[in-house]
Structures are given as structure tokens and as C-alpha cells.
């Protein structure tokens, strides 16, 4: 065999900043315990947590539904880091026991060998803070990233002041930056009761908690001013500045999906949840998934979503402005001003959320589908659960400048081509392929390809 195609990925080293025997994602109780256990068994261990977040992510509701109810203190990175540490005292113990802790660092990608990625020199994790992205190599990975919020697309749900239970909890107890005063809580399970207890403990005014699935409308022009709900056939109204949607959460399955871990639909575990054994091991060797990332408690999500999605004008995807009716009609996005196919969704055969995303744009916006994933899935799953919509890197929306800061091997630059490196592909196809053609298909460098 001759040398490998220098314009291919074969042999690319992908410089990494560090290597760890064990990386743990998520510094909640579960993640801290996993990191301490790994370190105590002698493994060089890194524990990363995306909090405190890049403030730009609060407005995008990443990773939780924050609903614009965090105060300006969240812009001060140093102060927020202190709060995160003081909210999680075990972090200090983990550090003292030798765990390397990286706060404000998001895991945006994981890269392992597979049928279409054979060239990777090691298992790699893409990490990023507010300034730069980098790679670390890992042997074992524990994902303890927890769960994220499920939004319910009732009228008014996109108003500032509509939060998820996780967003509320983070605002209140992690960041100490909740800016609301009088809250209404939606949900009847443990999640809602926990939110209510936390609110009362913080001295907040809890206007009410709606436990049983009911039609809702959130009132307000610029932000939440109140909540209207139906009970026993009549409408009731209360004033509030915050509505906490605490019906359900969903396991944060983005990293497991990107790694190729087996994930299955299980409504009793929060929807799509990774398959794990009793020890938390996923289907992928060396990757464990623990805590709520591996499954959450049963809830009344389906009944609530059905109520919200019954209205044709329910705004399902807020980023791309796609309504329930648009989805049912498979209507192209508004900028095209065109109708969908006759028969709408029924034209597609077995529904696939990624396909519907590309046709309607539902889930294609800057929040990376976090606000509408569960609604769209519910809408497509009338005849049984549609398959999981895929997660792609970067798993957090990273500025070009941050990704661009990832260290690059010089050979990658020297051999970069716009499309393969086949010179004859770019010369007239009505003439025989010349044997010594010059490649004009987007070479970056005028030099000969080197490696």
C-alpha cells in the first residue's frame, strides 16, 4: 500500500491539552461522588461542570428553561463560580482528594472510534470555556449531567418569567440569582413539590400549584403577569410574575447519543433514556451514565403535552416560529410562504423527527431544540414513539471564535482541501482525466501536499 491519502483524516494527531484515566461530566452530587471514587482508586480524574454558564446561554435556555428570571449578577463569572462552589461543598473535598475540577467548562463533543470514525488516535472529549475550545483524551467517562426541563407550549410560554423546574432550581439554589417574587407552579409530582418547597424556603410568595393536567394560558405582554387555568369547567386567574413548569424533566442524553450509547424510549424514565446496567454502565465500554442522566421519575408529561398541543396555534418551536398546525401540515418555514404537501405529515410514512425538523425547521434554532424536542416528539408519536432526534456537535452553541481556538495540527492545515484531493475531479469531464493535474478544488496552501 502507498501512503495514506494526505487529504484524509488518517494519521491526524488532534493535539490534546491533557489526558485523563477518568473524566466525569456534571458536578452535582452524583458526579462529585463518581469523581471522588475514581480518584480514590488511583485514577487521574477530571470533573467538569458547565456552570457557571456563559451568560449568553441563559437567554437561549441552555441547558435549562431559565425564562429570563435570573438577575444581572450572573454576568460576573468570578462571583458565580464562588456561588457554585458554596452550593456544592463536596467539590472542595473532591479537589482535596486529587480530583481536577473545571467549572464553567462545557463538554461539547465526544469522539470515539466507530464504523465511520476509524482514524481517531484516542477517545477524545471536546471541552470549552468562554474563550476557547480544547480536547482531552479519556479512557473512562462518567456522564452525570442530570436532566433538563420539558417545556409545555401553552399560550404565553415564551414570555420572560416562564421557567422550568431545573431552571428555577439553578436560579434559586445554584446561582442565588432568581429575580421573581410571586410564582405559580405547574405540576403534580415530586418535581413540582420540590420546587414549591424550595420557593417557600426562600421566602417566595407561591400563588398556587396546579397539580392535575388542565388547559392553561400565561398572561402578560412584555413578561409574565398572571396565569389562567381551567378547573371544573370554569376559568380561574391569578397574578404572578413567574410560572414554573414543573411537570417533568428529561435525561440529558446528548452526550450519550453522540457517543453512540444505546438509548431507548421509556416514558417511566423521562422519555429517551440511555440503557444502563445496575452499575450504571452504558452499552459503550468505559462509559457510565449515572443519576438523572440515566433516567428520571414517571410523570404526567403526556397528558399535559396533549392539552398544550391540541391548539393549532400552539407555538411549538419558539426559535423558528413553528406552530402545532405548521407541524401537522408539514408547512415549509414562513420565509418561503408555501404550503406543505397535501395530507401534511401523513405524507411522510413513519414519522422521523430529524426529517420533520429539516422540512419545517422545528428544532433547528439556536436553542438546539431544547425547548421543543419533547413537544415535537409527542406530536409525531401518535402511532407509537418516533425515533430519537439525533444530537450533533457542538452540544452547546459555541461562538466561532471559541471553536476556532482549538489547537490544530500543522499537517491538518497544510493538507486542507475544500473537497477531497482528487485533481481530475475539477477538470473537464468531457476530456480524459489527466495524470498530473493541478488541484484547484479549494486547496488552502499553494505548496505540495505534505504530511
Amino acid at each position, binding site marked *: 500500500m502507498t501512503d495514506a491519502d494526505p487529504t484524509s483524516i488518517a494519521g491526524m494527531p488532534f493535539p490534546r491539552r491533557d489526558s485523563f484515566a477518568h473524566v466525569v461530566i456534571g458536578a452535582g452530587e452524583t458526579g462529585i461522588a463518581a469523581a471522588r471514587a475514581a480518584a480514590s482508586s488511583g485514577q487521574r480524574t477530571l470533573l467538569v461542570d458547565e456552570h457557571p454558564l456563559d451568560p449568553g446561554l441563559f437567554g437561549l435556555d441552555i441547558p435549562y428553561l431559565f425564562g429570563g428570571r435570573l438577575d444581572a449578577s450572573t454576568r460576573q463569572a468570578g462571583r458565580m463560580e464562588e456561588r457554585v462552589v458554596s452550593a456544592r461543598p463536596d467539590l472542595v473535598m473532591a479537589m482535596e482528594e486529587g480530583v481536577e475540577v473545571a467549572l464553567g467548562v462545557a463538554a461539547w*463533543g465526544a469522539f470515539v472510534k466507530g464504523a465511520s470514525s*476509524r482514524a481517531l488516535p484516542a477517545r477524545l472529549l471536546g471541552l470549552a470555556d468562554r474563550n476557547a475550545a480544547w480536547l482531552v483524551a479519556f479512557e473512562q467517562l462518567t456522564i452525570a449531567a442530570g436532566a433538563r426541563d420539558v417545556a409545555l407550549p401553552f399560550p404565553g410560554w415564551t414570555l420572560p418569567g416562564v421557567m422550568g423546574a431545573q431552571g428555577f432550581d439553578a436560579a434559586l439554589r445554584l446561582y442565588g440569582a432568581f429575580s421573581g417574587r410571586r410564582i405559580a407552579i405547574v405540576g403534580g409530582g415530586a418535581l413540582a413539590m420540590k420546587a414549591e418547597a424550595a420557593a417557600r424556603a426562600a421566602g417566595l410568595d407561591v400563588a398556587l400549584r396546579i397539580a392535575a393536567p388542565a388547559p392553561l394560558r400565561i398572561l402578560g405582554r412584555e413578561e409574565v403577569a398572571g396565569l389562567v387555568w381551567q378547573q371544573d369547567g370554569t376559568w380561574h386567574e391569578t397574578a404572578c410574575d413567574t410560572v414554573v413548569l414543573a411537570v417533568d424533566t428529561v435525561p440529558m442524553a446528548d452526550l450519550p447519543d453522540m457517543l453512540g450509547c444505546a438509548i431507548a424510549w421509556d416514558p417511566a424514565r423521562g422519555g429517551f433514556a440511555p440503557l444502563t446496567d445496575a452499575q450504571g454502565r452504558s452499552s459503550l465500554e468505559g462509559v457510565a451514565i449515572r443519576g438523572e442522566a440515566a433516567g428520571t421519575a414517571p410523570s404526567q408529561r403526556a397528558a399535559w403535552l396533549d392539552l398544550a398541543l391540541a391548539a393549532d396555534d400552539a407555538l411549538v418551536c419558539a426559535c423558528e416560529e413553528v406552530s402545532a398546525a405548521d407541524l401537522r401540515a408539514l408547512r415549509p418555514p414562513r420565509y418561503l410562504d408555501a404550503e406543505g404537501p397535501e395530507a401534511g405529515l401523513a405524507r411522510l410514512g413513519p414519522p422521523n423527527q430529524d*426529517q420533520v425538523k429539516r422540512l419545517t425547521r422545528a428544532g433547528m434554532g439556536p436553542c438546539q431544540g431544547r425547548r421543543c424536542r419533547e413537544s415535537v416528539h409527542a406530536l409525531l408519536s401518535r402511532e407509537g414513539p418516533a425515533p430519537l432526534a439525533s444530537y450533533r456537535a457542538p452540544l452547546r452553541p459555541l461562538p466561532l471564535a471559541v471553536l476556532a481556538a482549538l489547537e490544530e495540527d500543522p499537517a491538518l492545515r497544510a493538507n486542507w482541501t*475544500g473537497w477531497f484531493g482528487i485533481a481530475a475531479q475539477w477538470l473537464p469531464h468531457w476530456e480524459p482525466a489527466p495524470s498530473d493535474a493541478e488541484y484547484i478544488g479549494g486547496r488552502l496552501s499553494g505548496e505540495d501536499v505534505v504530511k
Partner: protein
Amino acid sequence: MIVIVGGGVTGLSTAFWLAREGHPVTVVEKGIVGWEASGRNGGGCTHPYSPLFREEQRLWPMMDELLGHPTEWRPNRIKVALDEGQLDRLWKSTKLATDQGFAAEALDRAALRELVPWVGESAVGGILWKYGGHANPQRASQAYAWAVERLGGRILQHTPVRGIRTQGGRAVAVQTANGEIGCDAVVIAAGPHTAALAAPLGHRVPMAPARVEMIVTEPLPPIAMGGVDGNGLYGRQTLRGNLAYGGGPHEWIDLDGEATPRPVNTPVVAGLARRLQELFPRLGHVRVIRSWGGIVENTPDGRPILDRLEDPGNVVVASMSSVGFGLSPATGRALTQLVLQGRCDFADLSQLKLSRFGNLPVDWRSRQGWDALPV
């Protein structure tokens, strides 16, 4: 009945033109139409090195109306150079079109900035191609499929093809996971799976599958002409405003059976972001929200195979060698003519026959350095 094996953009376009002329067609697709690389690519419609270029340029402006659904096609391209070497190579590829009578215009930095406000001082200049364009791959692929059905054609999704039954030197049926479909002619347009489908007919269709990747940013306010690229990237600003760009190292792979492997991404996505920021230095704050992967195939010389076999004589083999989306309106018409009359009357396809690989050594992939690494 004409059976098209493969619901990618090439097969769907062929089915569309055949159905439009009143021929009964069935497209058999193992998964979802336009699902693989047909639906996820740069969307470019500018291929002056192809004998189908002129037809590509003639047809795209009509496709929305012909298909009855929007393809998001928009005309023209702008090429940006960050150094004189890039500019020189851009002019060489421009000449392929201007030699055929198409117009292009040099842009100095000021003119370039006027059209593309995102470029910075690093741009030495550019070229405005008053030809070519770009469209939305998934929307266009789906539009072909819906048009086929509207014209009376049949599309079978989630239906893998297991073989082609022959009798007396002709294909008589396509065997699928759900039974046989009798046929008068077959078009094999199954992307990287084309080789495995043609092999039992006694034909070696040399091709190597590879994985490629792209990134997508959050939407920006649309600029006048979104088809802007350079700096080793191909791509565009979509009509919605997102920047979708690809390029850089590909990965040669092997297929394992009839499934197409999941096209993952690699840290190359950061290399794409780096080059996009170099191209548009004012956009460092713009967030990357997605990446794509796709599996494509390349022939040994990187050029299409568009050929009607001699035996069985009613089988047409089509591979666009990794560059199929933009040419698809023209390719479908050309393949329709190969099916119906054995030759294409509007383009010279003489160099795209399978026979050009007759003397290809068995280990051609190794010799070209295109072997897949072990999993």
C-alpha cells in the same frame, strides 16, 4: 415499470423526469428519501467541469415550478480569496465556466465588502460568478419525491433492495425486503451501495465510500447573495440566514452490509469553524449550533459513472462520485435518456462510462491511499 434503486437526489430526479414523460416508475429506498448525503450537503449548483453544467444552469431556475415545492434555489456565487494563491486557483476554476460563455467579474476588496459585509482586511479580493447558485438539499430532495408521487410514480421507503433478478440478458425484477417488483428497466443510483448492487450482475463499479462533515451557525440577517465561500470551504448562507459550511479532511471507510453507517462528526468541526472565522473575521461571536456528517462515494478519478450496461442491457448505473446534488436536475434528465434511448442527446457523457475502469488493478484503493482503517 422502471425501477429506480436508491431514493437519493439522483434517483429521485430520474424518477421525476421519467414520470413527467408518463412512464411508470417505482423508487425503492432502504430508508427515507434524501436522507443520506443528498439531503445534507453544501447545496451548490455550480459545476462547470461537468458536461451537464449547461443543463444544470438551464434547469435550476425552473425547478420550483416544475416540482411544485420550493427548493430555495438562488442564483450566483461569490468566491473570496485570502491570498494571491487562493485568488489564482479561483480564477483557474472560473475559466472553466467563462470558456463556456458564462460571465464572471473580479471584485476588489471594496466591492467584495459591499456584497459580503462579513469579510475583513484579510480578503485580497474575490470573484462574482454570474452563474451557478445554491439550493436547500433536503427540501429539494423531498420536492422531487413529492413531485414523483403527484405524477403517479411510486416511492417505497424503508424497503431495502436485496438483488436484481435477470433472465435472458435482461433485468426482469428487483428483489426487495418486501417482495419482487417486476421491471422493464432498472436504474441503480444507490450512492456508495451501488457497487454491491451491481456486482452480482457481473460488473465491478469501483468506488470508495467516505465520510465528510459540515458545520451550521445560528442565523444571521441574510445578505444579498448567500452563495459565498472560499478559504478551503464550500457552503452558503441559507435563505433562513444560517451559515452552512464544509471542507477539510474526509475519512475513507468501508460499508458493512446494506446499512449506511451513522455519519458522525470529529474535531474537524473546530477546523471548519477556524476557517470560517478566517473567511469572515467579523463573525467570531456567531454561534455554531450544529454539525452534519454524510457518507459519499468517490470513483477512482473522482468523476461520475453514468452508463447503460451492455449486459443486462436494461440496467443503468449511476454514481455522481460525491458531487450529485447540484447537478441532479440535469443528471436525472440524462439518465432518463439513457434508460429510454441508450444515449444522452444534450451532453457528452462519453468519458463517464464504466469501461474506463476496465484495466483498474484490484487493489486500486490501496494504490491511491484510499484504504479504510480498521474499526
